[in-house]
């Protein structure tokens, strides 16, 4: 199956010369439909850079990022914006819900920006709300919802429409463990239904919901899906 997201030899360097910081070094990664990939790593390991590149919010210094087969580097600003609205859904730790819009309006907004009529947008938003277990609360404003409910709205917004790629950056944020688990179940369900997902987290308990867990260390990916190291690999003297 063709991957929804593909990173080929991606390097991202901030700054130049001696002060250059290599956020990512030659990272390659493919995420197929129905696959959830978790990326773990300490702060500053390049997790968020990877997510920003995957969503076209940042451009690589070298290498290529493809979403649904289209190389992001070859797209105009306008095409890129369209792809971001239509194909990519984001769930951030900071929820970025617009406080002056209701839950329903927050979810319908990206569809309307993309040219869907108000009625069709609201219908899709209502379905998305239903899916995250918030049917009936669409008329509430963000500050009338609990933290967990707000996070569900943010997820519904990320998943509404035909999003094929879901990018989540610490989506369980400050939620308690029960609510956090509900959010991950939701993400898992959507990915099982055919989306591709990338989940950035520093909590192993959350990463464990993924099919594959990648460790990012100093900008380099270590894939756990590969075979375990052989005993002789662990002894320097045997090499």
């Amino acid at each position, binding site marked *: 199956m063709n991957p929804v997201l593909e990173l080929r030899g991606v390097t991202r360097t901030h700054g130049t010369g001696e002060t250059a910081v290599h956020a990512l070094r030659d990272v390659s990664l493919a995420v197929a439909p129905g696959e959830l990939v978790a990326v773990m790593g*300490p702060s500053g390991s390049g997790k968020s850079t990877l997510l920003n590149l995957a969503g076209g919010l940042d451009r690589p210094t070298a290498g290529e990022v493809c979403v649904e087969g289209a190389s992001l580097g070859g797209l105009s600003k306008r095409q890129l914006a369209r792809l971001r609205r239509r194909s990519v859904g984001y769930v951030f730790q900071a929820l970025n819900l617009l406080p002056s819009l209701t839950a329903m309006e927050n979810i319908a907004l990206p569809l309307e920006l993309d040219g869907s009529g108000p009625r069709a947008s609201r219908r899709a938003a209502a379905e998305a709300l239903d899916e995250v277990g918030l049917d009936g609360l669409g008329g509430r404003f963000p500050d009338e919802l609990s933290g967990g409910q707000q996070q569900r709205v943010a997820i519904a917004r990320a998943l509404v429409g035909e999003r094929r790629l879901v990018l989540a950056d610490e989506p369980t944020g400050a939620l308690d463990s029960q609510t956090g688990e509900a959010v991950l*179940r939701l993400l*898992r369900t959507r990915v099982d239904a055919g989306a591709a997902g990338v989940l950035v987290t520093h*909590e*192993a*308990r959350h990463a*464990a919901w993924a099919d594959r*867990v990648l*460790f990012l260390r100093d900008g380099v990916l270590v894939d*756990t899906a590969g075979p375990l190291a052989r005993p002789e690999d662990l002894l320097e003297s045997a090499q």
Partner: protein
Amino acid sequence: MSIRHGLLALLERGPMYGYQLRAAFEESTGGAWPLNIGQVYTTLNRLDRDGLVRALAESEAGQRPYEITDGGRAELTLWFATPIDRADRPRDELAIKLALALTTPGVDVRAVVQTQRTASMRMLQEYTRLKGGEQRPADLPWRLVLDAMVFRAEAEIRWLDHCEASLVRHTPIPSQARPATADEPASHDDSRDESGVRR
């Protein structure tokens, strides 16, 4: 794992015989700690000897049910009320292994950490897959057991992350500390510094 107290807790529901106790124990804990029937009967005999359970008349099918006594009930109450003392847990092989890896020449400690973390992560994914399905109220006891394993695996992975971060700042022990081998006899001149202290 206290089978003794586990059986007392099950008998508090009502009299049961050995096979029933084994099935009920495994059902409560999701089969995480399988019991063999020999362990069940040995434990019942000891509980009987200590006056914590009482054997009832054998059924027509030849099964002998046991019931909890007042003494057993008091023991059970005390168990629930007393925190578990972690000091008597078995030695932690992983912690010992890492400590020794650090001081044994020729071992790539970071690779040892990474290999363990990958294995622990896979275990954690396995537990999470077991949790993934439908959530029925009747499964709560077993889900709590599963969560205990999830949180423990997570703690281990966090500790491994911490070890790795510490290793980044660690200067390896000099290779002079390598133990002597048959074809490379230890030279006193090489392995001692000027003060004569073995490094």
